[in-house]
């Protein structure tokens, strides 16, 4: 792969990408995609949130999952960092705790792909009737 150095090269590369249809049109409509928020305040970063975010980005990119990864601040679960919130379109968000690279992959494989709930979900959106 040739290295990208200038903005012109970036432009060319982007056009190639668009032609190969790797970039989804959906990216413009985040609400129709799975949204993953990585908690990245001091507590999250110190506990390894960046490694988790990079792992998520890589897996999503390689496996072409329709998801966007963004950052959020501290949700008050400092003891359980790194935490990530996964919001599937039309569903309530789910917060996973103590996420590491392995767990991040498990979340994608089990929850995102198969809707299977796994250990370590924080009752962040707990509702009473």
């Amino acid at each position, binding site marked *: 792969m040739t290295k990208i150095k*200038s903005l012109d090269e970036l432009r060319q590369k*982007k056009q190639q*990408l668009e032609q190969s249809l790797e970039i989804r049109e959906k990216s*413009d409509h985040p609400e129709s995609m799975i949204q993953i928020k990585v908690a*990245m305040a*001091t507590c999250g970063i110190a506990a390894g949130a*960046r490694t988790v975010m990079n792992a998520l980005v890589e897996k999503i990119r390689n496996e072409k999952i329709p998801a966007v990864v963004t950052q959020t*601040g*501290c949700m008050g679960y400092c003891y359980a960092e790194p935490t990530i919130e996964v919001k599937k379109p039309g569903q309530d968000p789910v917060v996973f705790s103590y996420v590491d690279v392995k767990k991040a992959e498990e979340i994608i494989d089990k929850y995102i792909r198969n809707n299977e709930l796994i250990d370590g979900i924080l009752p962040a959106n707990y509702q009473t009737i």
Partner: protein
Amino acid sequence: MNDLALHLLDIVQNSLSAGASLITITVDEDLIKNKLSMAVKDNGRGMTQEQVKKLSDPFFTSRTTRRVGLGVPLFRQTAEQSGGSLEVTSEPGKGTLLSVHFQYDHLDRPPLGDIPNAVVLMMSANPHVDFEYKYSYNGKSYEIDTFQLKEVLGDTPLSDLHVMGMIEEMIKTNQSDLKVCPIQ
């Protein structure tokens, strides 16, 4: 925090929660002067003199989710343990400038870490905020900003994961080129 890139990610979160729309990050490695400097400047809501004074107090925070605020105190401690300092200047309504200096060859200075990755993560996770990034190495520098990137990318959002990888690679190539000694 294992490296300075993580501190940078953390400090930029403060700018984001201050409602900044433009964040300028500078990293300057100057081996000749034996100095390493980093700065984060934003146009967020800023702080009063009182708040600036309290910044280094770990038990001061503006947030309500928890009672401690460790980002700036930890960064200051890291700077001071490696023969450096951290300064914050801020004005309500105008924004904040945080600058930090390290003695380059100090044994306790943490490694710089993967700054391009940190910058790209910030850019892609906050597409509505503009970032300017300037990296200098012994006086030679490389600059990139989201205004240029957004123009090049057109309709493709910065948060696209393929684009992220390309931008990261571009920044890394340019940065490592700065470190190449020209043949005299």
